[in-house]
């Protein structure tokens, strides 16, 4: 069995729990060079997403999530997430199931939409670099359990790989070299969410 609205529902719920759990860690990460609201924003955003009841059509399901996100936050990260949800919605319109191997392509489509919305590029040390890495890591991989393991690994690798590079987008960009050695809060947040969604595979 592939990815359906049931998996989406569970993923959103796990993400919501994780967002609440990591709120202060993410605020602190954003607080180093940014405005310190990544955690609180994600907590509130996922609270709202978690309350959405998802239709079976994955296009509609992602659309409902995007609509909820549209009202939940105005932060850059939130709007980029909304952009990603809209991209997924376009791609999955009319389908109620997608094989695990197809999820990577959805993420890569989301990545492209986010790049164009945010005016950034890969390598700028943003959440998009993590999404790109995860999308590529699982692209075509039909084993759901393995995809989960690889997602976590890819996200964490990106965090390490980018840690000592400078931010070139978002608020932290203004600090130039001072952003070296500091995790990008969007990358960190995405990594924590991936870990929560993919961690210790529960019985299905």
């Amino acid at each position: 069995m592939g990815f359906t609205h049931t998996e989406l529902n569970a993923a959103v719920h796990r993400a919501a729990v994780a967002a609440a759990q990591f709120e202060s860690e993410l605020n602190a990460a954003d607080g180093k060079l940014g405005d310190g609201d990544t955690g609180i924003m994600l907590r509130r955003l996922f609270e709202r997403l978690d309350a959405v009841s998802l239709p079976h059509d994955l296009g509609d399901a992602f659309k409902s999530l995007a609509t909820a996100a549209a009202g939940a936050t105005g932060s850059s990260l939130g709007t980029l997430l909304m952009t990603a949800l809209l991209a997924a919605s376009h791609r999955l319109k009319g389908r109620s199931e997608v094989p695990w191997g197809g999820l990577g392509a959805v993420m890569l489509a989301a990545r492209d939409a986010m790049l164009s919305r945010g005016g950034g590029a890969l390598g700028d040390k943003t959440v998009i670099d993590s999404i790109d890495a995860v999308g590529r890591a699982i692209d075509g991989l039909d084993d759901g359990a393995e995809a989960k393991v690889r997602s976590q690994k890819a996200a964490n690798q990106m965090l390490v790989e980018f840690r000592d590079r400078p931010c070139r987008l978002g608020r932290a960009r203004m600090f130039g070299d001072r952003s070296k050695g500091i995790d990008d809060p969007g990358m960190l947040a995405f990594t924590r969410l991936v870990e929560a969604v993919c961690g210790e595979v529960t019985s299905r």
Partner: protein
Amino acid sequence: MNAADDYVDEMLDGLCSMHPALVRTGSNGRVIARAVGAVKGKVGIVSGGGSGHLPLFTGYVGEGLLDACAIGDIFAGPSVEACMDAIRAADGGRGVLRLFGNYGGDRMNFNLAGELLEGEGIELTTVLGRDDIASGAENEREKRRGVAGIIYAYKVAGAKAAQGADLQEVTRVAEAAVDRCRTIGCAWGACQIPGAAGPTFTIGDDEVEMGIGIHGEPGIWRDRLKPADALTGEMVARLLEDSFVKNGGRASVLVNSLGATSLEELFIAYRSIASLLKERGIEIVSPLVGHYATSMEMAGFSVSILAVDEELESLLAAPADCPFWKV
């Protein structure tokens, strides 16, 4: 304050209950619009931005100024939905100008809102406030952020729209006001976002930072606190170097408290600025001194200079009426 999560909603409720000419609208109540509704046949003007800057942004909804404003959490952009709601609330059938600061998030949200509204038949234009000279070099002016000086763009665009001009004309004067306005701020005390663990930045008791942004974005230098005249001297020099104002020209000046700084200090600064401009033969028109664009209780002030031409000067002097600015 009460609970951090209620801060913005309670603030907006208080604002509207105090000023019955304003109403909260939009699906999350995160739009402030004129109680009389959109003016049919008039070009609409919307703005938007984070909370924590009152009177900016919402405080400038009123006659001869903005028609609606989308508002986010403290120092966070308005949601895409709020942007859509604000545009709809401002639509009087002759198009809507989106006039907001040049922040990545706000840009994304207003753009996305515009795309999602395609099909509703509202003609849209965009002008980005970009007055903060400390936020980008002169040859990268399009990257600069909008700060206090954006209220000049509100004022002239609002006046032009009130005169019945079309969307292109309203957009043109807003762009002209942005083009001819320069701002620089300095601060010596930070502010605390409700619910956040610490202040937005830290600064020593005896330090001042020149060029700081309205969310505490890092500035040009940080040093021991200096006398007011030294600060204003440098600020005016930087502004004039970068601006259109010619010796012998005319300009409006806005001396703005970033929050905690008292009117006394602002007048001391104004005195010095006025005399520096006078020395260069620049005549001040329609000066403003007070709390116009704040950062919660940040201690510091900003100086904006708008080089006026005849059109801008007369639009500045045109009647306007919002809770925080009456002409």
